[in-house]
């Protein structure tokens, strides 16, 4: 766990990509879930932040 946070602080690709992936997956789940409308409302911004983050962090060093 501490490796993960160290990686985030040192701007390493692996942990940041992991974070972006979690955001995208969460956004897609929120978009398609049938439980709460607020989840659907905030799904797009979550997916968008995750996707833009993914594009940026995939240029970070390993």
């Amino acid at each position, binding site marked *: 766990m501490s490796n993960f946070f160290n990686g985030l602080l040192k701007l390493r690709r692996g942990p940041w*990509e992991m974070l972006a*992936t979690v955001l*995208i*997956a969460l*956004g*897609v789940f929120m*978009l*398609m*879930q*049938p439980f709460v*409308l607020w989840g*659907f*409302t*905030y*799904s*797009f911004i979550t*997916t*968008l932040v*995750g*996707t833009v983050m*993914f*594009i940026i962090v995939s240029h970070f060093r390993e």
Partner: protein
Amino acid sequence: MSEKTVDRVAGATPVLLARKIKGLSDRAIAWIFVGPTIFLLLAVNIFPLIWTVNLSFTNFKANRINRVVDYVGFSNYERILNDPDVWLSMQATAHFLFWTIFFQVLIGFTLAWLINKKFKGNDVWTTIIVLPMMLSPAVVGNFWTFLYQPQIGLFNYVIGFLSGKDASSFEMLGSVDLAPWSIVIVDTWMWTPFVMLICLAGLRSIPDYIYEAAEVDRASKLRQFFTITIPMVLPFLMLAVLFRGIENFKMFDLVVQLTGGGPGSTTELASIHLKREAFEKWRTGYSSAIAIILFVTVFGLASIYVKALNKVKER
């Protein structure tokens, strides 16, 4: 011989053009060849995308082109993301996406595994199984509409025969409960062969000596299946899931032909909802915002998937 060909090609080049090309660097010539493709890509893909993003911030209506267009900021996005109808269409898409991929992977892999066994008539069976995939979605939609007829449909007859129920007592396309499953069945019927072909390519790429080594180590067939077959086919399976996932997320033609989004809006997938907003209600700005939401979602999913695929390949 090759010199002669070169001379002939050089001789065939018009003198004016030859003079112009003479003295150009390799890089410049490469740009001349690549240029038209880049231009087409920009004109056909990138420009419409940027234009759609622009339209999504306006109240533009394509059937009233003389009307003054106002920029409405993020209000289209706000309305969509609080609209219960769009939410329902997303849930219908999720149901369709999940079950089609589940059944296609399950049946496709099983078929590939069986076809990979060497038996008489192997090639004929492969051709027969692959046939549905070669048909047009419009043909398949029409064809299955007849099969699903309560009175004369073969599907209803077979289900009635097997279950002992009256064949005309249930309506696959007209029932709120059955219609979402009817489109899943048709898409699975049509696209399972595609998954099967990809899995078959994966299975045939596994060298025999790996299984021979496992036999020498006295590994059981089940063990061989889970430690050799599945891990080595996994990248291919993931590719199939990626292709089918993206295709089914924007599924339109087959479902329109079968149910038209009905009954009510039970089979109204995101793309059908988008089409209704764009070309029936003519809310172009609003529908552009829906299109951008779908695009970002597919793009995000594809990014995750490509990453996962690369990781599996590295293993």
